[in-house]
């Protein structure tokens, strides 16, 4: 209770710096949350696109389907291999297009045995296709989605940039909190010295500063949630009207994001407050 009162008093005693940190942290958290939600959304899109990318491997007549399926499975970067014997392929074809049924009965099955290979990493698809093409008994390979592949590459670059931005925003908040705590310590130098000289434990001395940092970041996180969550829902709603196929985040996902932000705020406030006060306490103590 004492520590909380001291923390609140400290915020009150230097309102300009407290407000500056609060604003900085709130802006950082809002951007961080929006960028985080965007990234999460991007991951969903990438995941959906990646799931649809696969290589069709056509075998030469007489090639051993089972042996090649095993050989393909052993290649690096392969997630799944599905074997489609040519009879099954024909059945699938005629089921999809009943007009071909008559023609198929007149001719010998022209379709080859086929392997459908799903890569672990969609961007490595062309490389995997080349490796599959080199297997003995393979007549040819095909994969579609070249545009999707390009988009995936761009999306990965965007993700890296966004992660760097998130890191910078976290550091910005962290150092803002540390700066405010330092100011708080400067304002209470005499008090801290007296505290130390009358035998206050480190915990008693540090706790108000840790709480001060925590209050600042938690408050900033609440402000950020109040801005970013409705903002995302509005944007996602608007986007869904034009691009209905794009996956968006639901209420449960947004709740998870909110908890994650609060946890991050807790961590930044506590650790920032603790590190700053611990470092500067020695200077004060002399």
């Amino acid at each position: 209770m004492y520590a909380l009162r001291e923390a609140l008093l400290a915020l009150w005693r230097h309102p300009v710096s407290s407000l500056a940190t609060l604003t900085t942290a709130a802006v950082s958290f809002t951007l961080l949350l929006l960028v985080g939600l965007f990234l999460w959304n991007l991951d969903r899109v990438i995941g959906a696109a990646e799931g649809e990318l696969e290589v069709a491997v056509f075998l030469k007549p007489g090639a051993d389907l089972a042996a090649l399926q095993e050989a393909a499975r052993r290649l690096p970067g392969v997630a799944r291999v599905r074997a489609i014997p040519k009879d099954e392929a024909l059945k699938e074809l005629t089921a999809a297009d009943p007009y071909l049924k008559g023609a198929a009965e007149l001719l010998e099955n022209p379709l080859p045995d086929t392997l459908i290979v799903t890569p672990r990493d969609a961007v490595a698809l062309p490389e995997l296709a080349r490796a599959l093409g080199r297997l003995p008994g393979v007549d040819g390979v095909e994969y579609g989605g070249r545009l999707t592949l390009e988009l995936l590459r761009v999306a990965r670059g965007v993700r890296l940039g966004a992660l760097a931005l998130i890191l910078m925003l976290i550091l910005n908040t962290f150092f803002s909190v540390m700066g405010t705590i330092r100011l708080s310590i400067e304002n209470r130098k005499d008090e801290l010295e007296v505290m130390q000289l009358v035998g206050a434990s480190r915990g008693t001395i540090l706790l108000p500063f840790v709480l001060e940092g925590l209050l600042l970041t938690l408050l900033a996180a609440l402000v950020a949630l109040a801005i970013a969550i409705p903002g995302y829902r509005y944007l996602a709603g608007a986007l869904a009207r034009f691009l209905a196929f794009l996956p968006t985040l639901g209420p449960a996902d947004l709740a998870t994001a909110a908890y994650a932000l609060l946890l991050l705020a807790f961590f930044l406030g506590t650790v920032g407050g603790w590190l700053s006060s611990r470092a500067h306490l020695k200077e004060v103590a002399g």
Partner: protein
Amino acid sequence: MIHLHRVSLHYPRTKTLALYEVNLEIKRGEFVFLVGPSGAGKSSLLNLVLRRYHPTRGAVYVEGVNLRKLRGHRVALYRRRVGVVFQDHRLLPRRTVEENLAFVLRVRGVPRREWPERIARVLRTVGLSHKKRAFPEALSVGEAQRVAVARALIGEPQILLADEPTGNLDRDNALAVLELFKLAHAKGTTVVFATHARELVEAYPQRVVALKAGQLVADRRPGRMEA
């Protein structure tokens, strides 16, 4: 109780030799005046006993414990046994007299139910019961210093260190403050009182340790003299 063994203290920043080869033994319950001109090393010696500084050479022992070896929480525990009064009262300006005293009890973990009684008792001792709700800025210099003494006494320390506590006071106030230290001494507290006020030393004939340029130059006990 307090033993300084060949203690030297050198301040690297100012390149000052504050103390040189000081040997001093203070017994439990003793009252020692630490005298000497400004810069003689009185404050440095007190700060060593308070464990604010470590000696550059030698060691400071309190009850057989080398203060240099105290770490972390043990430093706080040690300081709870020591009361300290400075020349400037160093009261917390944003807190009332009562809150300044409660602050010590709080940081020392004294149960809250004991606070009112202990605060009232110590304020009676220093004659300032009527000022308990006053802020330091509303006190006279003498009153503020008496509150500072009360703050040092409220923790019932075994050792009481005073660094020129009457330096800013007129003679009457200085003697009034000395009376408070005499009371603590009478209760068995070990007192180390740094001063350059001759009238105080004469008003309470006790052991006098003289420092000059960081060296112990005289150690006079009531009735005899040692150099």
